[in-house]
């Protein structure tokens, strides 16, 4: 089997001492970069590019890829400990991860994040290795109607994230859609909701809103009470600082869920790790026996999105390496890097440069193992961060938030936006509006509108294109079903009450 032969060759390349070293450097750097909110793999890789000119290409791509998937491991750290999303893919991890930390289960949360990342990351590489060409063809068949249906399905999950009041959750999601519209319309170059500010012409950065609505709002809410000095209990003993066997059992489906959804969504050029993690979280919640507890600190709620954003890496490399099409920001830079070194990713890349491709694949297996070994022992260490007195921790969270936002674009205006959204997030908490739907609406809004308009342009105005194509029809039906589930629940409750009273 040529795959086996290729892989063996790949390991020969990846296990060369120099390449092993680059792999380690890459994953270590990636972990650090992922932990820091704001600064992300694209910026880091771009800054390291000039240094890679004199390296051998195999070592260079191994290192850069290591940064890419290593960052996904680190991104969950601040999400869990501080409710500060490390990057846009880690936003969903905040939902249950931080709640687990509040209950003294930061260690298990961090641990399961690392384990899920390892499992799903490895599955992602397996997928890249085994099914890349057919997946790439499948991804090409995905067009705007399918993207619209996918995003609608994602948005329908709002209902599952609703908590007590569906009306408020929907309103939050609509506000998210509104924020996503701020900026210049791609199709007509019209400025929408920019209030005359030129900084808003390119829209509002997702990370800024997420950090404001999650982290800042959380700190402000905690400021209300002065009395508690050690808010977050950290249990002693190594046993309590890592996931238990029961935890691992609970996450069985989450591992599968995260791996599959992350890989498939990552392979779509219009997909991304944010959508993948939301979909995976939503699916996990839909099938979990304890779905009402999601959002209060359920471990599968951490495992699923964390797995998804890691296998997404493998998925995103599928269109890049089989077709030369970059799917996301980071893959675009990897493309630029490959071009810079004289390789041209495209359909002929793998046949013409098998050593490079298989070396990369093999190094990703090795890298994931390295990351697991690197991250698990750090879990108890990181969990200790929460033993700080809150009057030290909360200013720290504020500082990390501000630095994170500033490091994205060096803009004071973004800090201003952070303030605004921090206040908004706090008010939402006081008024019982769930913030996850707002973030979901923001993440999906722009893509959804674009996909809808593109679809109608393709069909010359006929809405039927959305249901005449099989894949999009199926996904839209699922979305409708998801929206109707709680309706049934409420109708049932209403009926039962009517029966009682009547």
């Amino acid at each position: 089997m040529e795959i086996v032969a290729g892989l063996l060759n790949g390991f020969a390349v990846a296990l060369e001492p120099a390449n092993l070293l680059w792999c380690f450097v890459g994953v270590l750097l990636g972990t650090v970069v992922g932990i820091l909110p704001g600064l992300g793999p694209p910026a880091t890789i771009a800054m390291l590019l000039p240094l890679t000119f004199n390296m051998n290409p195999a070592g260079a791509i191994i290192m850069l890829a290591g940064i890419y998937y290593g960052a996904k491991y680190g991104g969950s750290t601040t999400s869990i400990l501080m409710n500060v999303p490390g990057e846009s893919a880690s936003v969903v991890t905040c939902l249950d991860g931080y709640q687990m930390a509040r209950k003294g289960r930061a260690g298990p949360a961090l641990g399961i994040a690392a384990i899920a990342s390892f499992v799903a990351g490895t599955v992602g590489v397996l997928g890249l290795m085994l099914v890349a060409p057919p997946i790439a063809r499948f991804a090409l068949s995905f067009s705007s109607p399918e993207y619209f249906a996918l995003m609608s399905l994602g948005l329908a999950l709002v209902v599952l994230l609703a908590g007590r009041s569906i009306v408020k959750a929907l309103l939050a999601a609509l506000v998210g859609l509104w924020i996503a519209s701020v900026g210049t319309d791609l199709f007509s170059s019209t400025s929408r909701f920019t209030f005359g500010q030129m900084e808003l012409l390119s829209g509002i950065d997702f990370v800024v809103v997420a950090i404001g609505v999650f982290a800042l709002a959380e700190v402000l809410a905690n400021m209300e009470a002065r009395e508690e000095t050690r808010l977050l209990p950290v249990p002693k003993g190594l046993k309590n600082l890592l996931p238990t066997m029961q935890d691992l059992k609970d996450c069985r489906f989450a591992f599968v869920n995260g791996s599959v959804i992350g890989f498939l969504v990552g392979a779509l050029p219009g997909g991304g790790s944010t959508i993948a993690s939301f979909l995976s979280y939503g699916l996990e919640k839909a099938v979990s026996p304890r779905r009402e507890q999601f959002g209060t600190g359920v471990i599968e709620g951490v495992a699923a999105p964390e797995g998804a954003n890691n296998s997404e890496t493998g998925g995103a490399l599928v269109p890049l390496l089989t077709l030369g099409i970059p799917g996301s920001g980071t893959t675009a830079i990897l493309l630029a890097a490959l071009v810079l070194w004289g390789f041209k990713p495209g359909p002929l890349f793998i046949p013409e440069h098998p050593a490079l491709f298989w070396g990369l694949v093999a190094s990703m297996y090795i890298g994931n193992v390295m990351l697991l070994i690197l991250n698990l022992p750090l879990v108890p260490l990181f969990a200790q961060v929460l033993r700080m007195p809150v009057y030290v921790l909360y200013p720290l969270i504020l500082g990390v938030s501000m630095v994170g936002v500033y490091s994205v674009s060096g803009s004071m205006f973004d800090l201003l936006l952070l303030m605004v959204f921090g206040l908004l997030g706090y008010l939402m908490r006081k008024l019982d509006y769930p913030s996850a739907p707002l973030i979901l609406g923001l993440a999906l809004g722009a893509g959804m509108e674009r996909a809808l308009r593109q679809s109608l342009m393709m069909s010359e105005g006929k809405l039927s294109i959305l249901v005449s194509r099989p894949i999009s029809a199926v996904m839209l039906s699922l979305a409708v079903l998801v929206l109707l589930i709680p309706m049934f629940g409420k109708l049932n409750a209403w009926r039962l009450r009517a029966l009682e009273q009547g």
Partner: protein
Amino acid sequence: MKSASNLIALLALLCAQLSFAEGFKPARTVDLVVHTGPGGGSDVLARAMAVMVEKEKLLPVRLQVVNKPGGNGAVAAAHLAEKKADPNTLGLFTGVWLQTPLVSAEAKLTLRDLTPIARLVLEPAVIAVKADAPYKTLAEFIEAAKKNPGQLKQSGGSNTSRDNVVRQLLQKSTGARWAFISFPGGGERIAALLGGHVDIMVIEPEEAGEHIRAGNMRVLAQVSEKRLAKFPEAPTLKEAGFDVPVVPQVRGVVAPPGIPKENVEFWQDFFRRLTRTPSWQKYIADNQFEDGYQNAADLAKFYDEFTDRMREILKDAGIKTVR
């Protein structure tokens, strides 16, 4: 003795003249401002330029890239305007800097408010279809578009991008009509073409290279003045019989307002020297750019012509211009 001292005085005078002609020299690290984040098109070019400058030892100081993303280029332009009279800050502009002020009222600065220094490159493009498309020439596509107005589709960027400009010019000159569907990223545009969801696209030659080599894409024509070295068979628009102007995609350098004349001259000469270096020549050959060097005065003229023509094209296309 007198002749010797005369000679020394003459030499001293000559040296003084030479050092005066040296004039301005950057005293600290030079900032090159780009409007994209790390990894974006301008950022990659700027970083490559910084490496070249160091390799060819063109400056006594370092050139460093400063990212000021946001506002579709307006934030970077505003940053430059703030650095009034600072001779150690430069900006790498692209077509976006020229177009955004035309259509967005919030972007108040145009290139005229900054100091033009030099135009560096022109980026040609090719018009491509999927390999199994029934069109062998651009004329065949136009014919098909005329028979089915509005049904054929092109994938591209925003409606002010060069992709749409080429389409508007061709539509106006031939009377054909086809749809334009915007996608935010190059990857998505290519995927739309390769997946058969659109019929045609305007694409950079570098991006198309591998797909053509693999037999997935075919080039119908080139959007450039002369045929590109790597595409000897594809006709230019003029050669193919379409009398449309080649509206180029440009990159160049500007400086903050209020720079004294000697600084302008220094920088324009510096960039001329840069474009003559072997590393630069290799870079633009590799990326299939065209050398489009113009000095400051010519750049200013080019800017006026370009914006006037863009304004006309946008108005024809029904796109509202604000300046």
